């Protein structure tokens, strides 16, 4: 059980890292704050997942993010939340 938990976490990290490449075309990995596109590093994971999910349901407005989130599974979203959540902003 313990092994599975660790292995899953490793798999999740690989998935999050892979998916993050789509985000970094617009969101800076440094978490640098700029007007126009919000920084996404260092967020609480549940908040990150909730925001992505609301784009996915097209509740939250924004053409680009709606189109991105539409294709992300719940597992994808939590993997991204963990990946970006573990980074800290370098202002």
């Amino acid at each position, binding site marked *: 059980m313990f092994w599975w938990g660790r292995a899953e976490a490793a798999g999740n990290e690989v998935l999050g890292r*892979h998916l993050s490449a789509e985000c970094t075309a617009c969101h800076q990995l440094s978490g640098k704050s700029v007007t126009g596109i919000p920084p996404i590093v260092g967020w609480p994971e549940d908040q990150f997942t909730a925001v992505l999910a609301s784009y996915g349901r097209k509740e939250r407005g924004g*053409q680009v993010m709606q189109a991105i989130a539409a294709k992300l599974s719940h597992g994808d979203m939590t993997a991204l939340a963990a990946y970006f959540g573990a980074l800290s902003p370098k202002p």
Partner: protein
Amino acid sequence: MTQTRRHLVAGSGAILAAASLCMPAVLGQAKARVVVVGGGPGGATAAKYIARDGGGAIAVTLVEENETYQSCFHSNLYVGGFKSYEQLLHRYDALTATYGITLARQRAVRIDRDTKAVLLADGTRLPYDRLVLSPGIDLKYDSVPGWSQDAEEAMPHGWKPGRQTQLIRQKLEAVPDGGTIVMIAPPNPYRCPPGPYERASMFAHVLRTTGRTKARVVILDPKDSFSKQGVFMPDWEKRYGSMIEWLAPRVHDGIKSVDPAKGTVVTGFETYENCAFVNVIPAQMAGAIAREAGLAPAGGYCAIDPATMKSTADPAVFVLGDACIAGDMPKSAFSANNQAKVAAMVVCSELAGGPAFPTRYFNTCWSLVAPDDAIKVGGRYEPRDGRIAATETFISQPGESDEVRRQTQAENMAWYDAISADIFT
């Protein structure tokens, strides 16, 4: 509960892959060699991600002839006075320092696909296990009658960076009030589909804000329609009145010839004499190094496998960005950067046992129409029926509020900074 269990199962493939991420394909073997030709959004991104994700098992050499990359993306903002030229410049120091990429500051002159090697101008021979090509475009200098490479000073294209981009701005500055700018737009497929129309917007903006309100911009198009036309045209009218005139082939009846010495443009319907400035954007094709390697038909672009970005002619070679045929994806910096990440994943999977995930693509192209007024078009894409096909698209709407347009321009500016960081740092 079901969710967690399914996730666990779905994740298990990635777990196994993760365990082998840092192992070379054969232990003890020398590093696998990847050569990347072209340090633009396609090539520099591919070099970075392969070096970063190769787990130390891959030696990456980036071949780029210029010391500094000058971006065509946002060069229209330079023309419009929204950016300095220096803001379009990027260096490769961070890529070499951070990821251990070897930079070969040379022109690649030939690819020997039989022996898998790239030959550089100084005679160096770089053997490769995988080759990534992202050389951008070459111009078809014979595609507009009367125009040629010798005429590119008198009638600049500004579709390759450097002096050409700066000439566009200089010629714009010299246009007298009442003068006519003629832009000859390119036929499909070409680099940056909305680019000519964003540039025409910048011409009108500069003319208007410098009091040259009687000058006009005539776009002679070989196409019947253009990217974001339904948003650009009402916006032009709103922002610039009748200053920008767009003429389809059925209206101008074809571009018959240009005379660079006299500044004349002859169409089937009309002759434009003493033009203040003629901007000829010719037809385009894949960069020479890719064409000469036999990866594209004469005068064309390189066919790729949509799942991997590999050339359909050679499974050891990837072709990215403007040089490839990417189906529904436009030729943009965004697309090139995005395609590079797919290629990097495939390379790391094949050479370093990295994980393979389903291939998908994304693109957005922003265009500035007037200060604080930008529009966008974009979509999500997937491999389907042998090509990259759009699965969901979005586009700005005519008549959106000023606030939406202001926000779209803020996105555009932030995107440039983020993608530059993603490519070059």
